[in-house]
């Protein structure tokens, strides 16, 4: 049995010391990473609680409850930061990614402690797959938060829509990786391919525009 609180304390302790020692944007990065890990811990509690309340098995909980809970929880530190500190727009994307990285790191550590760690190939694919998935979903939601819509209700509706995209994407990923063999590998490649496609569109936007004309 894993005591994830104990793991959390061990991982969070050096980061907490770093928060006290560092200044400016470095401190902010560490705080967001720590909050990502904290949200992962809280998500696991909420997931377990909801699965018990609704009497769901582990598989159903992982494809129905955990995507919703995790994506909402991952968004909370960023919303708090936005509402309380009102930062400039250019800081928002980086902070969301940092929360996602903290979340994915803690999730991976818990996975490693509960599963076989002998197959480096599988762990490499899983590490990249899960990490990228959390970054992708964080970035999708950030699109909405980054003032894409002028009016408040449009921003709220748009952010809810983007959060749902993140949830459904996460749930599809969880279905694929809940299986073994080919579906699992397709699942792990799913976010990596998405990130590559986004980076290609971002980098070659001007060339693509000329090409499509």
């Amino acid at each position, binding site marked *: 049995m894993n005591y994830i609180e104990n793991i959390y304390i061990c991982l969070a302790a050096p980061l907490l010391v770093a928060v006290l020692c560092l200044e400016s944007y470095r401190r902010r990065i560490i705080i967001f990473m720590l909050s990502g890990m904290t949200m992962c811990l809280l998500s696991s509690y909420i997931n377990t609680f909801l699965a018990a309340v609704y009497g769901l098995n582990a598989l*159903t909980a992982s494809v129905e409850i955990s995507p919703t809970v995790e994506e909402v929880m991952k968004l909370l530190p960023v919303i708090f930061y936005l509402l309380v500190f009102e930062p400039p727009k250019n800081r928002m994307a980086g902070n969301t990614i940092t929360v996602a990285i903290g979340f994915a790191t803690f999730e991976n550590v818990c996975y490693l402690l509960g599963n076989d760690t002998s197959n480096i190939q599988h762990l490499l694919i899983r590490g990249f797959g899960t990490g990228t998935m959390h970054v992708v979903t964080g970035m999708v939601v950030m699109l909405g938060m980054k003032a894409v819509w002028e009016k408040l209700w449009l921003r709220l509706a748009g952010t809810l829509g983007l959060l*749902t995209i993140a949830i459904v994407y996460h749930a599809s990923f969880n279905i694929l990786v809940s299986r073994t063999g080919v579906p699992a590998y397709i699942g792990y490649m799913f976010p990596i391919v998405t990130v590559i496609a986004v980076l290609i569109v971002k980098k070659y936007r001007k060339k693509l525009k000329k090409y499509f004309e």
Partner: protein
Amino acid sequence: MNSLDIFNNSISLFIIAICMIIDIIRAVKFRTREWMLLFLYHTLIFLSALYYELYALLLGDEAHSGHIYELGCYVSYLFLIILLQYIREKEMDSKRYRSLILIPIFTFAMAVGFIMYSEGDVLSNVICALLMWMLLRETVKGGLYNKGKYGKTYTSKWLYRASFIFCYLEYQTWVLSCFFFDDSWTNPFYWSDIMLSISYILFIPAVDRIVKDRVAKADGSSMIQSLKSGG
């Protein structure tokens, strides 16, 4: 979930994937919010259909029914509402139409019917009725504004028509799902579902007209500006 469901969903996935590709190409080319919103709308429907397909193929009876699929489908209406609202704000005045009062009566009456006949989830049906109310309100409002203005060029009328066809087919599919249960191609539900999938394509030429019209207008006004400054 039977094999016909999976086949039907595969057709939807294929159609929506094509729509997504067209949307992203147009979004890169024109860099307008209309194409981006349509891309997000199609993306959410695609992901929901993919989730449904994966659930049916990989999990089957191992897990409970997928509420995330319903969430994805319903929230996708939000993007369509935002798109209609965004276009309406640019083209219309804030005129009030009394006939719009009938829309919530219709959507909630249908929701009550679905709860009674298909023994559906109350919360899910209420949320759906609310979203359909908002979507139909935007659609009918835009349609009423365009009515009687055929002499002028109102490119957005095609989008409202596409949206109305989508709403009609959505309700038709839901109604048919309450009364026809057999797993064969004679079941009209499957045909209605295929027509609904095809209706997603209608938004592409509709948005294309609006964006091209606006680009042409912007080019025209910039040309006038440059002529004025040159003169």
